[in-house]
């Protein structure tokens, strides 16, 4: 195994994205059996990264990568230590099982190929998050997991509940991602490094900075939203709208742990401060208790598991926040154990749903004989979740109690929190594993029997892995736990806990937990009713709050839009021209740079004066015209007179263009008028006329003054002389204007003609908008209906 080859690592990191491209095609050819091939992708990643384990176990940190945007010092680089290696192995290992499970679960689904694609994309993004060394890469992959999880939660997009859950997850986790970006930028500014591997040794610099708290809160915003910490936990249970493979993968084993990963990763940098050791345990503990209490209330297997996932994440955050060596070790063990048992239990829940047709725990029972393999997997996972030997969960729970036990009040409060939380999770775990399988056989919507191998392979393997990992705990610790704990703590750590229980406070607390769990389990139905009544009495939750925030935002934007865009063309025009007038007058007024008034030229010729008079007559006619057509034509007269002036003063090109523009303007304005069926004459009231007139006078005078002051500035003829001198020599043309347009500044013209074309398209589509379905013309510029009345 050439673990050192960076090319292979890069290829494997990109492999899920490539596989996502061909997944739909493969699925069309092979049907659900494509899962077997696609599962090879995470398997290959798993095997490749396993090759790093010996180096990592020796305490080495493997980095690699290449410069991505060298000018901004951004690199595409990865960092493989105990923490990221464990995550990679979990993501790819469980990922392979989930791919198989998806193939069985969604067998025959029309969009199976798309589903595989999304899953692989997510997998690639998640791997990217945990191996990223550079901040930018971390952020990009972090947001990619939000986006792919949006796609996966909303996979069943024809149902409104799915769409709502998907949007909710995207808003909460994507928004948190922005907070994370800001936090990373603050850290970048403090330390000047944008790579985690360099940052890890600069922890003191960050902690002593006056911006430490800001950075901490922003990073926590990202981590807490991703890891569903109270009060942002509500999106995770709603995300159960996704197909079960998604819940089993994203919302138990991987994505929701990204927040925990981030906290563990930054523990050496941000940790060991009073803020860190207060905020994290308090929020984590609150999440633990709220999650388990809400889980008791549920009857849906997936929702029960989802709420315990929330509480498990709370427990992890709480442990990470304590920061002591044992707490870190406990967090590491619990994270690994949780990924295995929760993934397995979710898959079991989906399996029951798939085979029996329901996942309501009150409508299930006696499935033990019909689904023996599922039952074994469920029991094994539940034993691990309950923290009983001989499974990995037992090690984790013992270590948690070792870590928390102390006799001061603060510690005792968290010990009590942990005991209650673990006890209630014990209840839920066994409720999921026992209730559907024991008791009298209940009639289910589908005739239940054992699922196909694709479905039970995943949960069984995970349950077996939890067993093996616990029995061979010295090897597990050497390979996984100790390197990961070292990476989280920032210095070398050794995890030693084994299956052999030691007498002491930890074992006592375990026994209390189990007794408490058994008592609650026996009165589960009553506890559920009590919780339901309590929640009904409260009546409001963050989930409702989310809806209120969203509808509030919609109402606000509606109100703003009504003010800013009332839909009246004349209002827009008035505002626009008032702004133009202000822009023209303000600089002259502020800097007191009024132009000198020009003197009347004594040598004005008669024909020049005549043209002036024509222009003025045209203008007067516009104002006094009885109907619109006359006004338009009079405006044309004024324009032609100006074009004549251009001609007289030696600008033939300009004059030529002005003639054509005036002609076309008259034609098109007349056409527009007939098109919009405007009345022949003006309908404005005197008041409006006065307002419009003063605005247009202000604009006109402003432009005149502006032009006067421009011409009174000393003129630097450098450019015009250059053009005149080189027009013939360099561009073979004597018409300087044209040479500038097509040669000297040809690229500008290219842009301009592109604008002309796009404008043409836009105008064309506006004209083509016809009466819509309500019989109201979209291009109606008369919202008050004043013209219809005439």
């Amino acid at each position, binding site marked *: 195994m050439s673990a050192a080859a960076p090319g292979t690592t890069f290829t494997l990191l990109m492999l899920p994205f490539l596989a996502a491209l061909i997944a739909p095609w493969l699925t069309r050819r092979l049907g659900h059996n494509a899962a077997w091939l696609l599962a090879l992708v995470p398997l290959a990643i798993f095997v490749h990264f396993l090759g790093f384990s010996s180096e990592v176990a020796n305490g080495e940190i493997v980095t690699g990568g290449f410069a991505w945007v060298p000018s901004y010092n951004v690199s595409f680089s990865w960092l493989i230590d105990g923490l990221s290696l464990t995550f990679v192995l979990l993501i790819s290992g469980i990922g392979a099982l989930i791919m198989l499970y998806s193939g069985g679960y969604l067998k025959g689904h029309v969009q199976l190929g798309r589903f595989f694609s999304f899953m692989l994309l997510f997998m690639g993004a998640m791997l990217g998050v945990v191996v990223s060394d550079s901040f930018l890469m971390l952020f990009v992959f972090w947001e990619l997991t939000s986006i792919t999880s949006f796609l996966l939660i909303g996979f069943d997009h024809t149902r409104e509940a799915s769409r709502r859950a998907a949007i909710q997850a995207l808003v909460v986790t994507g928004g948190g991602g922005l907070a994370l970006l800001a936090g990373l930028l603050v850290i970048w500014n403090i330390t000047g490094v944008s790579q985690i591997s360099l940052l890890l040794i600069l922890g003191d610099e960050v902690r002593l900075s006056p911006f430490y708290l800001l950075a901490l809160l922003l990073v926590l915003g990202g981590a807490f939203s991703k890891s569903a910490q109270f009060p942002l936990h509500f999106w995770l249970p709603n995300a159960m709208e996704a197909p079960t493979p998604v819940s089993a993968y994203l919302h138990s084993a991987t994505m929701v742990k990204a927040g925990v990963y981030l906290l563990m990763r930054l523990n050496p940098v941000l940790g060991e401060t009073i803020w860190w050791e207060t905020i994290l345990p308090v929020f984590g503990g609150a999440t633990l208790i709220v999650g388990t209490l809400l889980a008791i209330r549920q009857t849906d297997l997936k929702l029960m598991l989802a709420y315990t996932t929330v509480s498990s994440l709370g427990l992890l955050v709480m442990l990470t926040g304590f920061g002591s060596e044992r707490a870190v070790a406990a967090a590491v063990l619990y994270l690994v154990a949780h990924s295995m048992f929760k993934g397995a239990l979710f898959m079991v829940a989906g399996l029951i749903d798939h085979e029996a047709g329901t996942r309501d725990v009150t409508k299930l029972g006696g499935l033990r004989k019909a689904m023996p393999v599922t039952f074994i997997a469920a029991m094994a996972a539940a034993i691990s979740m309950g923290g009983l030997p001989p499974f990995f969960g037992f090690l984790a729970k013992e270590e948690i109690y070792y870590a928390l036990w102390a006799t001061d009040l603060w510690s005792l409060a968290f010990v009590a929190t942990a005991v209650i939380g673990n006890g209630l999770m014990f209840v839920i775990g066994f409720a999921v594993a026992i209730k559907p399988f024991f008791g009298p056989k209940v009639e289910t919507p589908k005739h239940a029997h054992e699922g196909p191998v694709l479905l039970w392979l995943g949960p069984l393997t995970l349950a077996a892995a939890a067993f093996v990992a616990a029995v061979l705990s010295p090897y597990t610790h050497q390979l996984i736990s100790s390197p990961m704990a070292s990476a989280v703590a920032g210095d070398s750590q050794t995890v030693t806990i084994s299956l052999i229980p030691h007498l002491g406070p930890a074992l006592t607390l375990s026994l209390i937990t189990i007794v408490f769990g058994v008592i609650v389990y026996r009165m589960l139905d009553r506890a559920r009713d009590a919780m339901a009544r309590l929640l009904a009495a409260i009546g409001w939750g963050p989930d409702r709050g989310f809806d209120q925030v969203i509808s509030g935002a919609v109402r606000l934007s509606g109100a703003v839009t009504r003010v800013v865009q009332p839909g009246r063309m004349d209002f827009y025009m008035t505002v626009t021209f008032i702004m133009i007038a202000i822009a023209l007058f303000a600089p002259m007024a502020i800097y007191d740079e009024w132009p000198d008034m020009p003197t009347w030229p004594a040598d004005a010729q008669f024909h020049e004066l005549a043209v002036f008079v024509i222009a003025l007559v045209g203008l007067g006619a516009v104002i006094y015209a009885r109907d619109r057509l006359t006004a338009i034509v009079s405006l044309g007269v004024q324009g032609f007179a100006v074009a004549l002036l251009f001609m007289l003063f030696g600008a*033939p*090109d300009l004059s*030529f*263009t002005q003639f*054509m*523009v005036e*002609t*076309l303007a008259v*034609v*098109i304005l007349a*056409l*527009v008028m007939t*098109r919009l069926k405007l009345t022949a004459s003006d309908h404005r009231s005197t008041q409006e006329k006065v307002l419009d007139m003063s605005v247009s006078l202000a604009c006109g005078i402003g432009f005149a003054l502006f032009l006067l002051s421009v011409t009174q500035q000393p003129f630097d003829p450098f450019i015009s002389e250059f053009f005149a001198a080189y027009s013939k020599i360099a*561009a*073979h*043309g*004597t*018409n300087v*204007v*044209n*040479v500038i*347009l*097509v*040669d000297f500044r*040809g*690229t500008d*013209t*290219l842009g301009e*003609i*592109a604008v*002309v*074309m796009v*404008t*043409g*398209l836009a*105008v*064309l589509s506006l*004209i*083509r908008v*016809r009466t819509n379905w309500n019989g109201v013309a979209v291009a109606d510029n008369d919202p008050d209906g004043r013209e219809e009345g005439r």
Partner: protein
Amino acid sequence: MRTVIFRSIAPYLTSLMVLFSIFVLLRGHNLPGGGFIGGLIAASALAIYGIACGVAPVRRAIHFHPMAISAFGLFLGAGAGVLSVFASVPFMTGLWTYPTLFGVELALSSVLVFDIGVYLVVVGAIASIALALEERDRD
């Protein structure tokens, strides 16, 4: 507007104007004129034809959709710019060639191609607006 006199004259007037617009376009490099002005003249020619004889004959006469003409002009303009890249000079550098045809030396250049592109864009865009406005509601 559709008087007999106007309807009879319009086709000749339009032809003359289009011819003149091409003349203006071609002489633009050395004398007043150029693609933009030429395009405006041709567009007004088409507008006049449309007012006099209706839009359908105009659309038949120009064969292509005016927006397609405009797009082709933009393509031509961009292509004229790209042409210089093949001669290993920066984008939009003018290239000149002087072939002799029937004993007359012609000055052909990528700049001319670009100007023709401008002409077509302007004709197409303005004519398509004008024609769309002239068209009565058919439905």
